[in-house]
């Protein structure tokens, strides 16, 4: 009996997964995922994980998918353009290769436990009481960490989605032109480079000044020795 349920749930899950990947319209893909999630909850129930299945349906299929639905409704858009040719073919091929390897690994594994149906059933396995006890004793730290993570995600979502003062057009976000300051650069700033530079007037040319020619010695600048 459980085998029948197993196959129904498994086929439901796999077809849901295929639907997500292959359906063009993202709205339909979301719906396919929702179906996949419910089938997965069924598989969880078969594995005696009551609380997890319950959480899956309420949290995942309930809250997260609803969020998806809203965003898809807002953003919309099917794919008008074809996917990049290379990866459209290679993608699934890589996936297939990985699946084959994983299956071989699992089926050829020397783990004895996977041939059996699982450990002996203890009463209350998978009930909220046991999960709750574990969360509050042995796994307290990850529990608290997860709650902080949720807080961070909430803050992040708010920050990402807020409007900024109406500046939404890409064209509005140009920076204003930095004002061009024209500094008056002095001709002679007294740097050592200028001090040691080669800017002397030629040596033996008399320089005309208001006092008469100031020449080097030996120039005919008016007689006198």
């Amino acid at each position, binding site marked *: 009996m*459980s085998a029948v349920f*197993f196959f129904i749930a*498994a086929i439901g*899950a*796999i077809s849901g*997964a295929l639907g*997500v*990947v292959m359906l063009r319209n*993202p709205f339909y*893909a979301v719906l396919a*995922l929702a179906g996949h999630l419910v089938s*997965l909850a069924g*598989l969880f129930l078969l594995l*005696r*994980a009551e*609380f*997890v299945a319950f959480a*899956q349906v309420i*949290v*995942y299929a309930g*809250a997260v998918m609803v*969020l*998806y639905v809203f*965003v*898809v409704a807002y*953003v919309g*858009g099917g*794919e008008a*353009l074809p*996917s990049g040719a290379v*990866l459209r073919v290679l993608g*699934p*091929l*890589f*996936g*297939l290769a990985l*699946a084959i390897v994983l*299956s071989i690994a*699992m*089926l050829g594994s020397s783990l004895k436990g996977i041939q*059996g*149906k*699982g*450990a*002996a059933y203890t009463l209350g*396995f*998978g009930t909220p009481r*046991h*999960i709750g006890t*574990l969360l509050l004793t042995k796994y307290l730290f990850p*529990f608290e960490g997860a709650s902080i993570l*949720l807080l961070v*995600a909430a803050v*992040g*979502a708010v920050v*990402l*989605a807020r*409007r900024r003062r109406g500046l*939404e057009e*890409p064209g509005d976000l140009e920076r204003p032109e930095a004002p061009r300051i024209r500094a008056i650069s002095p001709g002679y700033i007294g740097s050592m480079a200028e001090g040691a530079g080669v800017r002397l007037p030629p040596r033996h040319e008399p320089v005309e000044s208001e006092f008469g020619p100031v020449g080097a010695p030996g120039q005919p600048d008016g007689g006198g020795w």
Partner: protein
Amino acid sequence: MAIGWYLVVSAIIFCIGAGGVLARRNPLVVLLCLELMLNGANLALIAFARMWGGESGQVFALIVMVVAASEVTVGLGLIVAIFRRRLPIDVDELSELHG
């Protein structure tokens, strides 16, 4: 059914998700395929929890669900912000973080 069957199903779901991430261009659908991969991992965790008899795997799976929820939140927030900026909703076009 033996635990091994569940593991095989988990592997198949995971790989379908991986192929979907590579093959689709709409970021929303890419995120959906990412969810698929996470769910595949969750199934494997629950199966092993059943195999060993302890509930650690289930707790782990719960935490994974929390992580997935946060990631979806932030991812969708990004997509909404991108949409608001009138940029194309296409992972191949959003490639400014290149070297």
